[in-house]
């Protein structure tokens, strides 16, 4: 590898990492928190078999899971202005990412809720608790622990998917890389470099996931 390329890689590392810390990570984290809120509500509505809302939840999941994320970004950012709804890149990205991840996470959490044995709910009733009290204190906490590993996967996916926001002019790591490539014409090393930075982020999250799972296990929730 020539000194020129090494020099470019060294200079660009920080130039790519900064939008990683100011865009990729905050975009993923904010969207994920909102997605979890959506997912819990959408999962509970189905678990509790609330009429109408339950059908709406199925419709939402069907549409979001059945269409590409990139098209969802385009519809919101480039399409909605036709209806007089013009959103900036950041709000567009956060809305789409949270709605998209919310649909997947809702299915994860619904499955986890249904895996909590009926006896847990019955035991709660029998000590005199109401449905809402048992759900909030017993069933939902257990379900979220079961859902922790798959939800961690969804967060890692989301971190990588934020690269799609480059398509709606959010200055995140991929767009920062593209700008350097267009200036230097060193596509291969620079795209590999940004890939490595994503890998570092994913590895850190995987490590956090393992730590989280061990912490949950210490609180009596190891499986099997």
């Amino acid at each position, binding site marked *: 590898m020539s000194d020129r390329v090494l020099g470019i890689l060294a200079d660009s590392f920080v130039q790519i990492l900064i939008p990683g810390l100011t865009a990729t990570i905050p975009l993923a984290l904010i969207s994920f928190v909102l997605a979890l809120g959506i997912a819990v509500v959408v999962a509970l509505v189905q678990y509790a078999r609330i009429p109408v809302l339950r059908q709406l939840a199925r419709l939402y999941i069907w549409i979001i899971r059945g269409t590409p994320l990139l098209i969802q970004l385009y519809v919101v950012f480039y399409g909605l202005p036709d209806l007089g709804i013009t959103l900036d890149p950041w709000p567009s990205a956060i809305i789409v990412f949270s709605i998209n991840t919310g649909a997947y996470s809702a299915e994860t959490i619904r499955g986890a809720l249904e895996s909590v044995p009926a006896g*847990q709910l019955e*035991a709660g*009733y*029998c*000590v*005199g*608790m109401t449905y809402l009290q048992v759900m909030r204190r*017993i069933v939902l906490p257990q379900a979220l622990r079961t859902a922790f590993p798959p939800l961690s996967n969804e967060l890692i996916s989301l971190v990588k998917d934020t690269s799609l926001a480059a398509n709606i002019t959010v200055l995140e790591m991929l767009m920062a890389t593209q700008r350097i490539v267009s200036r230097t014409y060193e596509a291969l090393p620079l795209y590999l470099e940004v890939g490595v930075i994503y890998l570092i982020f994913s590895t850190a999250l995987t490590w956090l996931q393992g730590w989280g799972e061990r912490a949950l296990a210490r609180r009596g929730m190891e499986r099997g």
Partner: protein
Amino acid sequence: MAEVSTTAPILQLAGVCKAFGDAEVLHGIDLAVERGEVVAVLGPSGSGKTTLLRCANLLEHADAGELALDGAHFDLARVTAKEAAEIRRNTAFVFQSYNLFRNRTVLGNVTEGLVVAHRMPKDEAREIAVRCLERVGMADRLDAYPVQLSGGQQQRVAIARAMATSPKVVYFDEPTSALDPELTVEVLGVMRDLAQDGMTMVVVTHEMGFARNVADRVVFMEHGVVQAEAPAREFFDHPANERVRAFLDTVRGSQTLGES
């Protein structure tokens, strides 16, 4: 044996009917339990014993029937959520599969109902919980999670959880069926102590020794009806009818199976 009062029964079930689809499980069951009485409900599998307990505590919705609990009357087919909560706050249930809250410690399992459903201050709840756990011999494991306990230990914690709210009646649904023989003994021992302390208990069980030696009265169910009802000793020594005799013969047969 506990003193049986002559006043109105603390628990009275009348005309309880329940069907699952086409399968009629309970055909108008009547059951009265005196304060401090221990009633063993015996019968072959599928006779409706468990369903009866579950209907009494609203875990199943009875198609018809009435419940009187310490003077309060309820129509089991039309209970509101509020009435169901009131009934459950005054009773307790011990499950075959323990059903301890998996995300709570031993102590947390016992305080949960006191703090959340009975709105008791935490200190007071803890004091009561520790006392109940001492009585079942589990006070040394306050911070353990259910997954770390044996089946017998879990069931003892479940019994402590049931006692903690000072229920008027405790229902036991085959509390030892999932346990090894030596663990069965430890759980039955705890139940015998409770009975001697005057707790009102309705126990669905296959433990004939417990029914004979600890229960005051035996109710024998088959095909969704009460076939016989008698003081415990009399039930075993002088079977009331052919059905009871056949049942006792089967049970004794299974106990002597394999002996030469």
